[in-house]
């Protein structure tokens, strides 16, 4: 068996906190998911080589950066990793262009079609080049920080909570930019987040960390909803997450379709072909045992109950409606409808309950 392209084995203790994980994966885009204080940022600092040497063994995208046994330890400046820190950390004494040139080297070409020029275009920061760092909004700062990280032509991109410092309306915009960047790049990406919405749409694989230990790893939508991780991801605000593409549109609304053929109506007009990521609160999914009559909900989906989990008077009902959806009901409602695994139901979802996150 060949070795996984990315392997991170780190053991560090700092007072009462210790981080001790042994991770490996082959996927290009990995999400490191966990609550704040779980050791995600420490893990990132270890990969960047910014922590005192420990018994680390780190390989990213096929290149070894640390191997204590072989005495290998690259200095931070030799690792060629593009780091986007949580608060952007744009150099305040340089303008936007200065920050980019700092990373790219003095003679860098900002127009042409090099990596940097493509990043400037994809992140739509061409108009910001003449500004000072402190004149930018939070979202602009984050986009410039991403472009700067890419300007150094890194072997991998490391994103530390790239959306955490932004308010909600901005998040969707920056997330769209990030997803576009992600798809355009070919280098590995490590994407740290404590936001379940973000975790579900960002990566091919999710690595869940809590209190400095690995909890689970696997495809994000499976892992975050798995029994071992659910209490944690629910505490962090886990909701249904849906990827889809716009298939038809009118002046008031549009229809989107998921990869597995689930169709939903959104209350906004969007161009056909546009990709959307939606978040749907499990509380906002209504279930009806009989076919509903004339209702205002724009989305009525035939679904089959897969699983019912009861906890303290609440019930989480996992449905197969083409895509997997979870509805949160009271235990009393489950009893009244006589729901059990295999039951056929209708799920009612108001168009307005579908929140676009990217």
């Amino acid at each position: 068996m060949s070795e996984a392209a990315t392997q991170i084995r780190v053991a560090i203790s700092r007072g009462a906190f210790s981080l001790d994980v042994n991770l490996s994966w082959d996927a290009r885009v990995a999400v490191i998911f966990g609550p704040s204080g779980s050791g995600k940022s420490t893990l990132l600092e270890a990969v960047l080589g910014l922590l005192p040497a420990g018994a680390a063994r780190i390989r990213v995208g096929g290149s070894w950066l640390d191997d204590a046994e072989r005495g290998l330890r690259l200095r931070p400046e030799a690792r060629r990793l593009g780091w986007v820190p949580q608060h952007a950390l744009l150099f305040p004494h340089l303008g936007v262009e200065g920050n980019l040139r700092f990373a790219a080297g003095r003679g860098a070409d900002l127009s042409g079609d090099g990596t940097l020029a493509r990043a400037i275009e994809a992140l739509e920061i061409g108009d910001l080049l003449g500004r000072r760092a402190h004149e930018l909004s939070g979202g602009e700062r984050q986009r410039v920080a991403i472009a700067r990280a890419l300007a150094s032509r890194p072997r991998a991109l490391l994103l530390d909570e790239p959306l955490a410092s932004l308010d909600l309306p901005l998040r969707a915009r920056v997330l769209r930019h990030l997803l576009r960047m992600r798809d355009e790049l070919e280098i590995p990406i490590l994407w740290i987040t404590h936001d379940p919405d973000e975790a579900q749409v960002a990566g091919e694989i999710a690595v869940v960390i809590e209190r400095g230990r690995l909890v689970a790893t696997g495809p994000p939508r499976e892992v975050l909803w798995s029994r071992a991780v659910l209490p944690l991801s629910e505490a962090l605000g886990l909701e249904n997450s849906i990827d889809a593409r716009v298939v038809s549109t009118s002046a008031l609304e549009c229809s989107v379709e998921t990869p597995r053929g689930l169709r939903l109506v959104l209350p906004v007009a969007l161009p056909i072909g546009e990709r959307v990521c939606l978040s749907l609160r499990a509380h906002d999914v209504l279930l009806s045992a009989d076919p509903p009559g004339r209702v205002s909900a724009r989305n009525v989906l035939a679904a089959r109950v897969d699983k019912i989990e009861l906890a303290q008077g609440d019930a989480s009902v996992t449905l197969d409606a083409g895509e997997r959806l979870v509805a949160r009901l009271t235990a009393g409602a489950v009893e009244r409808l006589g729901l059990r695994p295999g039951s056929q139901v209708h799920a009612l979802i108001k168009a307005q309950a579908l929140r676009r996150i990217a």
Partner: protein
Amino acid sequence: MSGAEIAEITGLTLRVGAVATAAILLPGIATGLLLARRSFRGKALVQAVIALPMVLPPVAVGLALLLLLGRRGPLGPLWSALGVELVFTWWAAAIAAAAVGFPLLARACEQAFAAVDPGYERLARTLGLSPLQAFLRVTLPLARRGVIYGALLAFTRALGEFGATALVAGILPGRTETLALGIYARVQLGEDGGALALCAISFAIALAAMLIAESWLRPQGRSR
């Protein structure tokens, strides 16, 4: 008192201040950086010792320097062997000025570097810069106001230095007579007019330096 005499005293004072400030610039920056970025055992003691020349009576500092630089002190044989005579030269005045100015510079640098988020340096490292390059291209430019402010403070402190200088350099007209020493000597001789003229020059230089420092160099909180 002749204009040539005033020019000579002013020139010597500026030279002493400039040489003293230039000599302590690098050590002051290095000390400030060390104190701002590293924690080590006995750091409080180091900080206290560095601050000493600022709070000791300057005459006491002068006496200590006289012992260190004089032919009869513990380093006397070294000075004899090298054939250098420091005491009662303008070099001694510069050394005295450097000794009292150093704590001001080092403390200003410490504060200036402490106000720079170390994240910037770390980020620069990940972009391929060595620690020294990261310091020169990121930390120093971000702390420059505080560093220049400290250098100006040390320079103006050097201009006014009296107690330590009088002891190690003496008041030798044309050789070690700075503005502060000159004023004192004129007053002793009853030449009030000359003393006032030198006072006016001191006042003008100090005011100019402080205006620069206060108006656009004073560090305004954390640089971000």
